[in-house]
């Protein structure tokens, strides 16, 4: 188990290093940072001074080492707009985003898991088809359309909820639901497939054959085994939730990381965009690492095929 966790950890660190290096390379190769910040007509000696100040006259490998060293010390650069630390600006926005994503993840699981289990146990009935049809609709409706429809119904027509802002708990409802529904649709579909896979296993037939009551077969044999692949998808949910916040925070004027990112892209404020990209990378790699380790812990079989991740 320790060897398994160590290999996973090594891969996670390697992925992060690749991400950082590719980010650095892409940023240096796509254009002269001096010309992006200063105007094209800036006098050559001003540009030279600028490059000396930011170390851009150094060879690439030395710039790279400086960059990595800076990141390791929490120096993610400064915002081009007001010279504030990019890291501080991003960290400042994290609580607002977490106040949406954490409840949304819980809601995703609360809707998705039972719906998937229910559909699998009633496979090929009308209830199953309706659930799966809602699931398809759930992940084909873009979140900005879902958000607009919710605003139209609950804020404009019924006037139950505020259209944006977070003055009290009612302001949280629509953003959280908008974030949670597409994920719940994916989880429902995935859980259903995982359940059906297990329901077709010989050991389930054996259990029913020897006279174990159905409720007990499901709770003791089907659910625990179906839970194993379902754990992996929760890692992916973290990624799509983070992507979802970009749209949701824009629609509901929510002062979180997603809104900061959109403004920064509009202003081409690279330090902030890069900080958020690396932040998301760290979150995703950590989430996947946690899922991998949880997976190995729940299912001992996976620990043995560690080194070469089997082709799927």
């Amino acid at each position, binding site marked *: 188990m320790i060897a398994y966790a160590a290999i996973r950890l090594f891969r996670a660190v390697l992925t992060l290093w*690749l991400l950082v290096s590719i980010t650095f390379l892409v940023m240096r190769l796509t254009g002269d940072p001096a010309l992006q910040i200063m105007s094209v007509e800036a006098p050559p000696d001003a540009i030279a001074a600028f490059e000396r100040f930011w170390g851009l006259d150094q060879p690439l490998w030395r710039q790279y080492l400086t960059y990595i060293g800076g990141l390791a010390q929490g120096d993610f650069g400064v915002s081009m707009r007001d010279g504030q630390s990019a890291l501080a600006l991003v960290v400042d926005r994290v609580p607002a985003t977490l106040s949406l994503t954490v409840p949304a993840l819980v809601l995703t699981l609360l809707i998705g898991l039972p719906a998937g289990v229910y559909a699998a146990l009633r496979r090929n009935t009308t209830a199953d088809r309706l659930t799966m049809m809602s699931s398809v609709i759930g992940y084909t409706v873009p979140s900005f359309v879902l958000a607009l429809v919710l605003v139209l119904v609950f804020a404009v027509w019924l006037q139950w909820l505020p259209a944006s802002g977070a003055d009290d708990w009612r302001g949280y409802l629509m953003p959280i639901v908008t974030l949670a529904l597409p994920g719940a649709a994916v989880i429902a579909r995935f859980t259903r497939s995982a359940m*059906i896979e297990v329901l077709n296993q010989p050991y389930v037939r054996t259990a029913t054959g020897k006279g174990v009551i159905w409720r007990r077969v499901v709770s003791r044999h089907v659910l625990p085994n179906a839970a194993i692949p379902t754990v992996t998808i929760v890692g992916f949910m973290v990624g799509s939730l983070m992507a979802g916040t970009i749209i949701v925070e824009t629609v509901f004027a929510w002062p979180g990381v997603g809104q900061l990112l959109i403004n920064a*892209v509009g202003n*081409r404020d690279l330090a902030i965009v890069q900080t958020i990209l690396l932040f998301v990378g760290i979150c995703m790699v950590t989430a996947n690492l946690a899922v991998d380790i949880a997976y190995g812990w729940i299912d001992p079989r996976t620990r043995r095929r560690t080194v070469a991740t089997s082709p799927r």
Partner: protein
Amino acid sequence: MTQPADTEEDVRTPSTGRRAVPALVMIALVWLAAMALLALTADLASPHDYRSLDLRDRLAPPLFFGGSLSHPLGTDELGRDVMSRLLVSIRISLTVAFLATLLSTLIGVVMGFVAAHFRGWVEQAVLMLIDLQAALPFMFLALFVLALVGNDLVVFIILMGFYGWERTGRLARGLALAAQGQTYLSSVREIGAAPWRVYLVHVLPNTASTIVVAMTLNFPEIILLESGLSFLGLGVQPPLTSLGNMVGYGREYLTSAAWIPLAPSAVIVLTTLAVSIVGDWLRDRLDPALR
């Protein structure tokens, strides 16, 4: 929405058979054919030029809500005909999604086949890239590149063309590895066929159905990604227009002129839904490998 790579391939029931109702699939196919036709004939079918302003006739309601026949879907805040803009948007959104899906499939298939052919460190490098791409929600990557290089239509299409290549790549590598174990390939190689011939003339046709199914998964997701970015004002740029673009700019008129954002929203939802329905059905019908 990023869908995990292994959900559909791994956990698939052996015997679901036909799941989608054929009538539903027919409706979906008819809808898609209509969209393709409208995209091709957008110039002929649109009643007005999509850019022409009519400031005296702003925010006119659609036909059955008190509007007139000359603007069947009403007009927007600048008096531009919503119907004409919708048709041009359908053309642009579908073209972007179509080209991007082709590009993404091309990248994925080439990377997958290269990995399967050379094995060794080349394969490990490709797998590292696939893992890296899978570890990062594409939306963030896209925004990073857009902030870096700015935006125009060609850059945007190429960027969208990287969406989902890692899934196709993983799939293509698996398919090529499986094909290498088959007798027909060793015979072809015995005869002395060059590697490119082996892959292009033999492996590709034998794996095409699976790859086409993967494309039907990718296509609606690229539509959603494109419309999401355009909605945020960071995708297709004015004076061009796209479905997400129309929703984004029409959002402010949700209370006063709801048809402006709702008409393109409906087209996005119905189109992605139709592709998904057809894709599910195709997967169940054509592709025993994924069952």
